[in-house]
């Protein structure tokens, strides 16, 4: 299915947001996710079903002022 991940369109097969993170080799606990402009907390990822055209943001801690 076509997904927009961090602003880039990609063709990935993943049933849930948790499966998507695994499919794309995201590692570790230090990630925050949003789907179509809403937070998906870490506990909700495994039951968050993805659909064609979904917009996903995957963020991590970075330096900031």
């Amino acid at each position, binding site marked *: 299915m076509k997904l927009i991940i961090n602003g880039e369109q990609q063709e990935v097969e993943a049933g849930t947001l948790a499966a998507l993170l695994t499919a794309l080799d*995201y590692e*570790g606990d230090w990630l925050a996710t949003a789907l179509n402009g809403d937070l998906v907390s870490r506990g909700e990822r495994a039951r968050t079903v993805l659909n064609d055209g979904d917009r996903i943001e995957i*963020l*991590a801690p*970075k330096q*900031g*002022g």
Partner: protein
Amino acid sequence: MLTLYGTELSSRLLLGTARYPSPAIMEEAIRASGAQIVTVSLRRETAGGGRGGQFFEVIRSLGVHVLPNTAGCHTAKEAVLTARMARDLFATDWVKLEVIGHHDTLQPDVFALVEAAQELCADGFKVFPYTTADLVVAEKLLEAGCEVLMPWASPIGSARGLVDPASLVSMRGHFPDVPLIVDAGLGRPSHAAQAMELGYDAVLLNTAVAGAADPVAMARAFASAIDAGHAGYHAGLLEPRDMAVPSTPVIGKAVFA
């Protein structure tokens, strides 16, 4: 002691974590500054990457409070979502709320700032709003539920210091019981001392330390300046006078002619 949202702190310096020459220098500068609160951000993570986690492990090892920011957000909606993602990731309800209104000055969009603060405070966040020294905006932020205000000194990263001290004095006078933190625009330790001499409770800075030739030494210098300014304010500063006042007593002076 400084108390922010019920948390007692002995340091009055909040330090950013960006733009250091290396992670090791960042770590050493944070330690040298004595800062107990450091700001961090959230940015897109590349697939297969893990650098964000590595960076955050360093911060965690320092045992400091983390204050996630919403830097770069230009709308209330973006800022609110970023804050919620930060709360999920960092497990803190603290957020440095920035909603930028102007590309060149990085001036806060105070209308969107108040809107976002209302939504986040209602959702249980402890909001540290990056704002201007406008008293009406400050009132609205307090009404929204903010218990701390962070007016700018001058544009972010400009190193210009306190360009409008009169407004900061006015803000201090109007809100004697609200913790006030000067955030943004400080370039040198004397700027931080000046803010503290106005009765501000703390300062937040980043570039002035990270961009110094020796960030670790500069972190120490800022910490000293903040302590000196704070102590000076509470010791009771002498008001400026128009004419000279002799410091040596005149009475008892010998008359030689």
